């Protein structure tokens, strides 16, 4: 800790860490580090996507019934909300890059947080609540006896709902982490840590935020849309 302070004393730019030679090296390292981390995240979600696709091909009728249980309007609204939040995040970074005032950066960051929170609110209070009331949450209260029309497909409907909750739950967890990161960024911005010279934390947090959005862009069609929702009957 204190050796960092000692180094920072020699007129280094703000946020400069002692192990680097210069600010450019630090920025490259931070960016590469985030990309490498996102690769691990892709494989983390990738395991679940693989399992989902394998089981979907094995138990297609049950998965189609399951897909029809989801509330596509909320899913679509949430998709729009998240895409907007990616825009506001990018605008926050752009504001820092072009040397806009602290207030402007904070405004875009807070707007991003509001959109992120709106996504979670829609997910938890409307979608998941409805699932609970309609006995589509896997477990002891799952609607085996309430939905006789599922017949032999009922276990696979439950399996679909498992994957729905695991995948969207893991995604929501990443959103919550993202909101935490945004809170830290707001505080750092308010303390004047960023300028057009140095805004790496904003930029790499943006990478993370966009990544979480892109995961949703894959989840939404995979869970809500494919499976003949609009075909035939």
């Amino acid at each position, binding site marked *: 800790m204190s050796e960092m302070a*000692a180094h920072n004393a020699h007129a280094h730019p703000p946020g400069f860490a002692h192990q680097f030679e210069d600010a450019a090296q630090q920025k490259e*390292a931070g960016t590469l580090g985030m990309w490498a981390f996102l690769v691990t995240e892709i494989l983390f979600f990738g*395991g679940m996507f693989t399992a989902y696709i394998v089981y979907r091909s094995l138990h297609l009728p049950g998965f189609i019934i399951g897909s029809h249980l989801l509330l596509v309007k909320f899913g679509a609204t949430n998709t729009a909300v998240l895409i907007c939040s990616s825009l506001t995040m990018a605008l926050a970074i752009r504001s820092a890059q072009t040397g806009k005032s602290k207030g402007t950066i904070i405004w875009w960051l807070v707007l991003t947080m509001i959109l992120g929170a709106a996504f979670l609110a829609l997910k938890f209070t409307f979608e998941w609540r409805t699932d609970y009331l309609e006995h589509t949450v896997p477990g002891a209260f799952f609607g085996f006896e309430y939905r006789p029309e599922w017949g032999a497909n009922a276990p696979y409907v439950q*399996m679909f709902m498992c994957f729905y909750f695991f995948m969207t739950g893991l995604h929501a967890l990443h959103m919550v982490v993202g909101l935490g990161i945004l809170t830290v960024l707001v505080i750092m911005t308010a303390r004047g840590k960023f300028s057009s010279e140095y805004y790496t934390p904003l930029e790499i947090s943006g990478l993370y935020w966009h990544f979480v959005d892109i995961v949703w862009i894959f989840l939404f069609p995979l869970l809500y849309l494919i499976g003949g929702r609009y075909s035939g009957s």
Partner: protein
Amino acid sequence: MSTAIADVHHDPVESNVNYLNASYGIKSWLFTVDHKRIGLMYLAVITFMFTIGGVAATLMRLNLIEPQGALVEPETYNKLFSTHGIIMVFFFLVPSIPATLGNFLIPLMIGARDVAFPKLNLLSWYLFVTGCCFAMFAILSGGVDTGWTFYPPYSSLYSHTPVVIMALGVFIAGFSSILTGVNFVVTIHKMRAPGMTWFRLPLFIWAMYATSLIFILGTPVIAITLFLLGLERLFHVGIFDPAIGGDPLLFQHMFWFYSHPAVYIMILPSMGVVSELITAFSRKKIFGYSFIAFSSLAIAVISFIVWGHHMFVTGQSVYAGLVFSVLSFIVAIPSAIKVFNWTATLYKGSISYEAPMLYALGFIGLFTIGGLTGLFLASLATDVHLNGTYFVVAHFHYIMVGGALMGYLGGIHFWWPKITGRLYPDMWARIAAAVVFIGFNLTFFPQFVVGYWGMPRRYAVYPAEFQFLNIMSSAGASVLAVGYVIPLIYLTWSMRYGPPAGRNPWGAKGLEWTTLSPPPTENFDVPPIVTEDAYNYAHAEASHV
């Protein structure tokens, strides 16, 4: 701390301020961001975990002295081999060289002050320790009996042991691996000293780079797999349970997608260490530098497409089996390239037999046996006979112990003077290396034979005709245990009483030998500039005493 740094800058030669004595007290260690201290903290934790795994192995070998089991109930035996496997794989071998020597050496070898993200490095250590705590808790509350592979549906529905806690421990320790991998990749890409081009890097760095790629690409998959397993067990919803349409084979595919590359997480770093040792003690430039460097990357890539050879008898498609068999033969090629290059490096070298070199030579022989017996198991028809027998156990112990652990011990002995600034008694070290080699072969060679005869692994009892070979194996295990205790004693002794090592006790090449022993907190008095290739021993010969 800042005054200590200032001293180093003003008085680079005479100063004896180093990373060990720059500050004192438990807090100066627990909150350190110095890669060298973090490496030592890993060393302490994994040595402890190794002891736990070793005790479990000892109890297993004691039990197998008698055909009916000499010591424990079969249920306890199941827990012993599970504990041994889980601890040794996830909490010793995977972090062993990367987290200790890798952490300590990567910045020193590439001429950097620290890794790219020192705080993340400390976080990795805390995650690892948290994982260890969960694992120890699971062991103390009875231990799990699933084997280290956690196959469902037994692990998810039927086992009455704390599977979730153990899986959570592995899951958390996995994130330590991921963050370490990210840190190393960025460090090697971005932190190299001026003049340290990719093809001047020591081969240890190439090996660590390849290992880090597997950390990044493989570990998240085992994490999500264990996560799904835990959910199935906790909430009794079907993912892998065939009773409700789940597919246990999917778990095996996902498990081995990580766990086969994980074998290379364990062996690649040792290969890197051996490349350093062979050159240093034969005083020769490495033969075929770029072949060894690229074979590390080739191993990392190919290791991801061979996992199906663990599943030849599980009911995967015959055609998949054929492809996996061919690919498994192919992954042997880069390993063989390394062995040939090391041998060619030895040719006409001026070889000396200090303790690290004994480990390195032991590595080459034992790894070759382990690798060649792996080809038996990569052949479809042979594997049907040998699958699930002690032949498999012997094979992977030749790789994991004869290979990975020998490399680890060789590396610890080689860089110990750099880490502590002290020399250990070389004669004791040579004796210990010989004891390890003899004990190892006595333990595991009989297992090839008894496995070929048909003794299945993971059983607490066996037919009486296998007893003689089992007694040989158990006797060897006790010799091996002695071989592990001796270094523990003299290395501990040397930390306090060993004679000072000086900067470069072996006359070895490499940036880490140009700085003080132990190195100062910021590693180099003057930031190094590299002007020559790695292993330039032709020039060193004249100046070396």
